[in-house]
């Protein structure tokens, strides 16, 4: 169980595709003009990621190593084609607003990256969890950026008009780069702080048993929690 939780946390936060690894940037910049577009793109990528991870993981012993990249790309392209048909039929508004970026999910580095680094080596359940976690991490990042840009750029929240105050800069292409840069900086700042605190706590835990090896406070604190 612990292994699955670690995979999930890794994909969601520790190795967040958008803010930590800076992958899939084209879609992130283009489709965060409003929160709803961000959520739509994020969930589309999550769906493709889950399906492609599962299929690649199932076929990992069949695909020869030398032609694995073309094989992965064909699998991903098939999933995107299916998704495109489904969106065209059931959510035509989202289909229109995503435009050319819907077929471009094929060349989203996150999906090929997870296929190559994870799904081609791990069992099906692990790969499925990894796909969902990475996809939801991407969705969360896109939603955060979409909410910021929509709130400042058009004064609304998920399409609900809140006030008339608007800064056009944030919905323009320049604003996309600016908000993305600031989000990465903030994420790096926070994760550095957390890591520093974590390392300080580890150092303290290690030092205390060395002074008094019999009562080991690190372990008892964990048991109480």
């Amino acid at each position: 169980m612990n292994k699955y939780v670690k995979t999930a946390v890794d994909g969601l936060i520790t190795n967040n595709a958008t803010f930590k690894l800076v992958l899939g940037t084209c879609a992130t910049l283009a489709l965060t003009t409003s929160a709803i577009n961000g959520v739509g793109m994020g969930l589309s990528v999550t769906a493709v990621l889950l399906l492609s991870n599962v299929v690649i993981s199932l076929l990992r012993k069949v695909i020869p190593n030398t032609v694995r990249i073309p094989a992965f790309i064909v699998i991903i392209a098939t999933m995107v084609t299916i998704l495109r048909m489904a969106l065209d039929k059931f959510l035509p508004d989202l289909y229109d607003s995503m435009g050319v970026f819907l077929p471009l999910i094929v060349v989203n580095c996150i999906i090929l990256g997870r296929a190559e680094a994870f799904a081609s080596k791990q069992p099906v359940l692990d790969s499925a969890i990894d796909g969902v976690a990475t996809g939801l991490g991407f969705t969360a990042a896109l939603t955060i950026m979409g909410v910021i840009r929509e709130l400042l750029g058009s004064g609304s929240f998920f399409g609900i008009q809140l006030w008339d105050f608007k800064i056009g800069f944030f919905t323009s292409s320049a604003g996309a780069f600016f908000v993305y840069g600031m989000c990465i900086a903030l994420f790096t700042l926070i994760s550095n702080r957390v890591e520093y605190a974590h390392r300080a706590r580890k150092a303290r835990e290690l030092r205390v048993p060395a002074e008094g090896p019999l009562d080991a406070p690190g372990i008892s604190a964990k048991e109480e929690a």
Partner: protein
Amino acid sequence: MLGTIITIIVAALFSQNFILVKFLGICPFLGVSKKTSSSVSMGIAVTLVMVLATLVTYPLYEYILVPLKIEYLEIIFFIFIIAALVQMLEKIIEKLSPSLYQTMGIYLPLITTNCAILGVAELVIGSGFYADIGLAAAADMNLWFALLYALFAGLGFTLAMVLMGGMRERIEKLPIAKCMKGFPITMVAACFMAMAFYVFTLI
């Protein structure tokens, strides 16, 4: 005719710049723009593949996929053609000019997963695009306009890459806060470049 050609050139280079306005090909823009020389190599490689890919994908879509009514297979066909083209180009350059291969070789495999290439192949067959480049109707699009657009979109990509490369060479030497180093400061620099290019969309 001449008006359309000029509109396509200006749109592809500036007002619809692939990187700064359309957000296509951001990965190489951030990944290989540390030096001006590598930016130029990447830009030329992308332009070359873009034109060749359009030369194959546009006729394929118009004369094979549409008559056979299998348009829905476009993504799979296009990505396969691009991957094969990149592989072929790599082998040809390796044989013809080993020195060019040395400078360009490492960027070629990366181009397969560059959204700008698949982007241009998808854009020139899409119907929601003709107004952007000054055409009256989707039916006015033909192979020559598509190729012209691909060529200048590639040059626009190169332009943005080179500008960014020059900027980053200078940014490297500046004292910047730790959390802003790397991607964040590059994004802010790109933001100012995008503001400059925004002026072209107002014309």
